[in-house]
């Protein structure tokens, strides 16, 4: 079965589509659950995680690397969930956090600005200008977040398998299309795609465990053979190796763990 990520702007009816798709296919619909899980597991207040995944990094964040750490926690929680398959994720950045997994159907739902403004005005009891300003600010933040952390524009259609505009097409029509696409052979979980997902989950777990002390590590995993890439020098390298030994015991599914220092990071590394 498939994993479906639904990307959306605020008030873009993506949540409605996600819930209906999940109900029709009998999948789990998740969004905030991932943050709660990450918050619980890594003992970080949920609000900090929400800010990490919503607001673009400030200059201070770039030095503190706290945002990268929080995103690693969220990614770890999401990949753990996604590993169970049959989910519809409509939280932020699903298409980026689950990048490279073949059985992920990446969907973006858009709505025209007028409808979004009307929804925001109704919900927040504010005027049209204020609603527009809030939406533009929100969109700007989301775009800046993705651009600064992953170098891509979330509005770029080529990041998705399907982009549906709720205007002439209704929410139910969008649900039909998403379900139709999700049932296709390309999005069925195969042995090889499951391995890719398993490896991504392992790599994310390793990264989340290390990122607190070693923010600049990158991790890859292939059939449980994990390679940690680092730029750290000899002394820190020893500390990393000690930590790695403990990880081997802690994280399930690791066959072998190696540390490579000074090598360029592979593009698919977490």
């Amino acid at each position, binding site marked *: 079965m498939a994993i479906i990520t639904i990307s959306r702007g605020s008030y873009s009816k993506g949540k409605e589509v996600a819930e209906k798709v999940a109900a029709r296919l009998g999948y789990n619909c998740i969004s905030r659950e991932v943050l709660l899980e990450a918050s619980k597991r890594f003992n970080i207040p949920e609000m900090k995680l929400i800010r990490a995944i919503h607001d673009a990094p400030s200059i201070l964040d770039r030095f503190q690397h706290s945002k990268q750490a929080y995103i690693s926690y969220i990614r770890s929680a999401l990949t753990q969930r996604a590993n169970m398959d049959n989910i519809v994720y409509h939280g932020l950045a699903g298409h980026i956090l689950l990048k490279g997994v073949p059985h992920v*159907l990446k969907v*973006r739902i*858009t709505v*025209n600005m007028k409808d979004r403004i009307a929804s925001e005005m109704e919900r927040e009891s504010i005027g049209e200008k204020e609603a527009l300003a809030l939406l533009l600010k929100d969109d700007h933040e989301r775009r800046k977040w993705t651009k600064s952390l992953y170098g891509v524009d979330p*509005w*770029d*259609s*080529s990041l*998705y*398998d*399907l*982009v*549906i*505009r709720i*205007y*002439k*097409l*209704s929410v139910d*029509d969008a649900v*039909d*299309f998403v379900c*139709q*696409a999700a049932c*296709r052979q*390309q*999005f069925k979980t195969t042995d090889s795609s499951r391995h890719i997902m398993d490896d991504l989950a392992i790599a994310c777990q390793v990264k989340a465990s290390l990122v607190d002390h070693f923010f600049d590590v990158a991790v890859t995993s292939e059939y449980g053979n994990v390679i940690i890439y680092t730029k750290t020098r000899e002394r820190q390298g020893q500390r990393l190796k000690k930590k790695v030994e403990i990880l081997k015991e802690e994280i399930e599914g690791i066959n072998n763990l190696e540390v490579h220092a000074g090598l360029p990071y592979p593009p698919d590394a977490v």
Partner: protein
Amino acid sequence: MPIITFSSDSYRKSREIAKKTAEALGYKYVDRKILSSVAVKYDIPEAKLIKTLDETPSFMGMSSKAHKQYLAYIQEAVLGELLDDNAVCHGVAAHLYLLGISHVLKVGILMDFDERVRQVADQEKVSIEKAKKIVRRQEKQRKRWSLDNFNLDETDPSLHDMVINISQIDPEEAVSMISTATGYRKFKPMTYSIKCMQDRELAARVRVALLKDFPDVRVQARDGTVVAEIKALKREKHRKSSAVKELVGNISGVHYVEVHAINDIFRQAAESGR
């Protein structure tokens, strides 16, 4: 029944899907073949019309005036063809000048960057690095073309009702999705949307008639009433308005012509400086 427009960053693949959709629905298929009749009608080489759709005006290439004129010819021909509904339109940028007409289903077809690079490398027999450069240049060119000619960003997903990435979703599935969407009530032609289409076609015909003498003309049409906006000096206003009325008056479908002559401030400044 509706009109379906296709736009894509991969011309060949989207043409294949557009053709299959037309066949599946039994619709008329309109593509760049229409350019041959335009070329004959206006006595222009067909290659120049193709260039108009692919390139922006440049100092060494096509002049801005010629580009605008040729594009107007193409628009006129395409809109004329699409008056009958039940049509699939591909490769003539129709999605950019059919905005706001409710029975038009606008579909975007995308392909992953790497796949496009491989295709270009195979077709042009060049290295992957060179192919990447070509694809990036094409992307920039497409965006600039739509911004220059229609002030719209081709890559903006809100210009489409649905965008399908065929690197993951196979063409047959895409055809099936598009065919399903055409059955939805919102894409059925209504009296109003048909009238909008007729108005737009009339405006395109009038614009073609005026472009030669009035390169800056902007035309709107509603129920046979045509409003033409031209630039003129104060002393020319009357003469130019009469000329517009004379040129447009005989066009079929035109019942009344209104001319708005706007003061040409640049020419006025140039003349006062003499």
